[in-house]
């Protein structure tokens, strides 16, 4: 049983005596007797923590993590990027780990300043005027961005490129059941969003009928899920024409080389912050990035840290524009978010500090270089073709001569996580699409060996 409570038996006796009670059970007499558990929860009794650690180590050992024995070529929103010892060490400082939301700014300047720096760094990456202090993940950031945009425009319709991560689209669709927002998915054609099919109405729309009316928000990803770099000028022009806001889902590492969302005219930029120092971690905790034009600051979801001074005039930081938030505005709040991903935001600030101006560009460059080298090597394998022709950066889609999940399983046996089998909306109903990602961590030797093994697996 866990030894984390300090009470000695004499102390418990003394405390009960002070309360005029004779047993701890009497503390719960307010709970109707019929409801009180007689036989316990059915859980096993507690065990000493070394035994629990062994159990957890056994579970961990039953996974096949990426690394030397499973070289990672999978991405799809979760990337095997360099996390230096310095980021791990600083981000695990218990002052950051065991504090809570900075409600008392006098004793929370550490977290507040780190968040202020995070906001600055994200805003610079996104080419935006400001960023919030984090959301749960990329999908949550997307949902909040569409909520903001539809609230600002007073409209109900989202035009959502299918180039946006399928999981994020799925989350947006789930939450639209509550908000009543109408999500219209716009397909990719040869790797780029086919906006004209949305413009021309319901006929080109996948399945359901397109509702009448103008979109309040247009969402596009850059790079998109297939790794493609779309011309965002078209989406921006569409927004100018319809009065919709433009939301761009960007990758924070690719932003080291790419034009920023702000430069393309995005009103809101959202992203998955995992590549900024978070381990793959089976999908979480990750980090929702949210940056926007200052015109929308009063609609901003979640926490925002601002600089101010204390009564002696010293620079200080505090959470600000709190009247937007749920604990004050209640049912009229801009979002319901309370606990966000602060530790991940602090981690990302540390990682961005480590990367710096030259590092983020270098990581982006090396990823692009590795991906192009890998793509060329895989396209030399007989039967492998590019899925689309739109230019790509660090991730690309292939068409295989067999089921992509079959190939992935075969290559796992050979020590490679070959990529992600694409869902069939990208492959006209077939299951032969493979999404491959290359990061700055992949060496030429790994890529060469991957391509050789890939070719053998297809023979």
């Amino acid at each position: 049983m866990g030894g984390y409570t300090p009470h000695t038996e004499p102390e418990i006796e003394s405390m009960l005596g002070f309360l005029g009670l004779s047993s701890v059970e009497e503390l719960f007499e307010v709970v109707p007797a019929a409801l009180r558990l007689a036989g316990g929860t059915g859980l096993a009794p507690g065990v000493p923590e070394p035994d629990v650690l062994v159990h957890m180590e056994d579970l961990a050992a039953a996974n096949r993590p990426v690394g030397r024995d499973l070289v990672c070529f999978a991405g799809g929103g979760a990337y095997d990027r360099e996390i230096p010892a310095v980021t791990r060490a600083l981000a695990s400082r218990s002052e950051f780990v065991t504090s809570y939301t900075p409600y008392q700014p006098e004793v929370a300047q550490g977290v507040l300043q780190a968040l202020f720096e995070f906001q600055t760094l994200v805003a610079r990456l996104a080419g935006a005027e400001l960023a919030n202090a984090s959301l749960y993940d990329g999908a949550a950031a997307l949902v909040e961005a569409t909520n903001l945009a539809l609230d600002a425009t007073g409209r109900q319709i989202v035009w959502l490129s299918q180039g946006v991560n399928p999981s994020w689209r799925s989350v947006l669709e789930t939450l639209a059941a509550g908000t009543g927002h109408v999500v219209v998915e716009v397909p990719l054609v040869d790797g780029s969003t086919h906006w004209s099919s949305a413009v021309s109405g319901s006929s080109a729309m996948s399945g359901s009928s397109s509702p009448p009316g103008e979109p309040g928000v247009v969402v596009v990803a850059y790079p998109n899920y297939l790794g493609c770099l779309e011309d965002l000028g078209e989406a921006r022009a569409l927004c100018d024409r319809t009065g919709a806001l433009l939301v761009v889902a960007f990758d924070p590492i690719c932003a080291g080389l790419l034009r920023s969302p702000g430069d393309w005219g995005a009103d809101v930029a959202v992203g998955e912050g995992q590549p900024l120092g978070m381990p793959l971690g089976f999908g979480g905790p990750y980090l929702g990035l949210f940056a926007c034009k200052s015109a929308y600051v009063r609609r901003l979801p979640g926490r925002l840290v601002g600089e101010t001074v204390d009564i002696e005039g010293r620079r200080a930081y505090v959470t600000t524009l709190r009247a937007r938030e749920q604990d004050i505005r209640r049912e009229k709040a801009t979002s319901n978010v309370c606990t966000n991903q602060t530790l991940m935001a602090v981690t990302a600030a540390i990682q961005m500090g480590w990367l710096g101006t030259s590092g983020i560009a270098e990581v982006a460059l090396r990823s692009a270089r590795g991906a192009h080298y890998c793509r060329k090597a895989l396209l030399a394998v007989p039967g492998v073709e590019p899925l689309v022709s739109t230019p790509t950066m660090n991730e690309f889609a292939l068409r295989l001569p067999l089921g992509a999940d079959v190939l992935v399983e075969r290559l796992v046996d050979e020590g490679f996580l070959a990529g992600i089998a694409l869902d069939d909306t990208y492959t006209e109903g077939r299951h032969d699409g493979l999404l491959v990602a290359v990061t700055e961590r992949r060496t030429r030797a790994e890529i060469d060996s991957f391509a050789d093994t890939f070719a053998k697996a297809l023979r």
Partner: protein
Amino acid sequence: MTAPEEGVMSHHAGGRAASAPLLGHDSEPTLFELSEPGRRAWQLRTTEVPEAPLDQLLPEAHRRSEPPALAEVSERDLVGHFTRLSHRQFSVDLGAYPLGSCTMKYNPKVCDAVASLQGLTDAHPAAPASCNQGWMALLVELEETLCAITGMAAVTLQPAAGAAGELTGLLLMRAWHEAQGRPRRKVVIPDSAHGTNPASVTLGGYEAVTVRSDARGCVDLEALRGVLDTEVAGIMLTNPNTLGLFEQDIVAIAAAVHEVGGLLYYDGANLNAILGVVRPGDMGFDIVHLNLHKTFATPHGGGGPGAGPVAVSKRLACFLPGPRPRRVDPRLDGMGARYEWATPERSIGRVHSWHGNALVLARALTYILAHGDDGLREVAQRAVLNANWLRKRLSGTFDAPYDSPCMHECVLSAASLKKRSGVRALDVAKRLLEEGFHAPTVYFPLTVEEALMIEPTETESLQTLEAFASACDRIVARAATPEGAAEAAEAPQSTPVRRVDEARAARSLVPTYDARR
């Protein structure tokens, strides 16, 4: 009220942080001010990937003209900066953090060790199930333990925090009612509810209907009956509620809500009080969210990451978000995987990019297994013991607006103190910082004037409770003189910064370093 033990131990409390050394009161420069062109910290793997001209890698139309200006610092300066920031931050590891409603208990370090296991940290969430059998087994085991703890039938682990769990729960409520024919319009919440409740209700497409509390601080059953009709989709309750009081009428409340076809939603913010003693499922709740970062100490991370799993009764299981991990029937099991992904038949869909805040979930399972059935009950017992002891110990120091025994936290009021001396709950909070304690939650719940919401948790010792109470006594005694009251309004003095100008922060907004004038 003076404790019999006073004097013996008040200067030796493990949870008092007033000895923390602070080297001066300068501001810490930002990363941007520490930056020097050409300096760098990064080092990357030698890859030997052939160089290629940038034009071949990336069309010019997509390239930025210059790299984003992040910062240019050495590793040494990076470490110095963030270490100094950490020294400007209060934390549970530093001292007692009796922030009501937040359950700031000690976070066992073994959970950090688990969350650092390479087999967990380096698992790709999109890898085939055959690569993630350990993770899937872990999630299923956690689902089963959470079912046992809550008395529910099935769990989704996807929601990333409590508020995400609330919204998920409301969407499950909506899906249930739609399956019965229509979604209904309203959700009832007590006036003492957390702000996330009404905000989530709005996002769930419902209208929040507030029901008042009675003189006991509990839901007014007659008032509740007055708002119940067939447009009510359900009620959201925290039990014990935000006043730290157990809703003794819960069985009657459940019957009344179920009678009109509504569902009961349990906000798990205060589950720590009743672990192993009474279960939401046995009280009649249909949907339950848990805050793993609170109850199971995963920890809070400065404001996340959390995890907000949602547990439901059997009739709602088919609506849960998917995909969910499940154990393959051993009778059907060949040589292959033992766990697989499956999406419930009438699933509302995904609520997270992947499978939830997985490393947080691993920490929670570790905590639960270490405590077990007996240990979790002891957690609740000692949390409630501590809160009641402190409530009685402080009942002469502050006003006690409700006279019934509390559960895991107590709500006191500084209303009389304010009337006598002008010293407000906020001033008490700031004075406590100087005394080496984190402040309680103040001005919540909204139903209590000058509220001080104190949640000591089970991991603070009697000595720490007494030291905290003594500090409160000193603060109140000092407020009796005009100089003392003035001093309280000026507090804190010993912290890295003193009271901050919040109005200025909002009026001339500086949300980034680049927005500074």
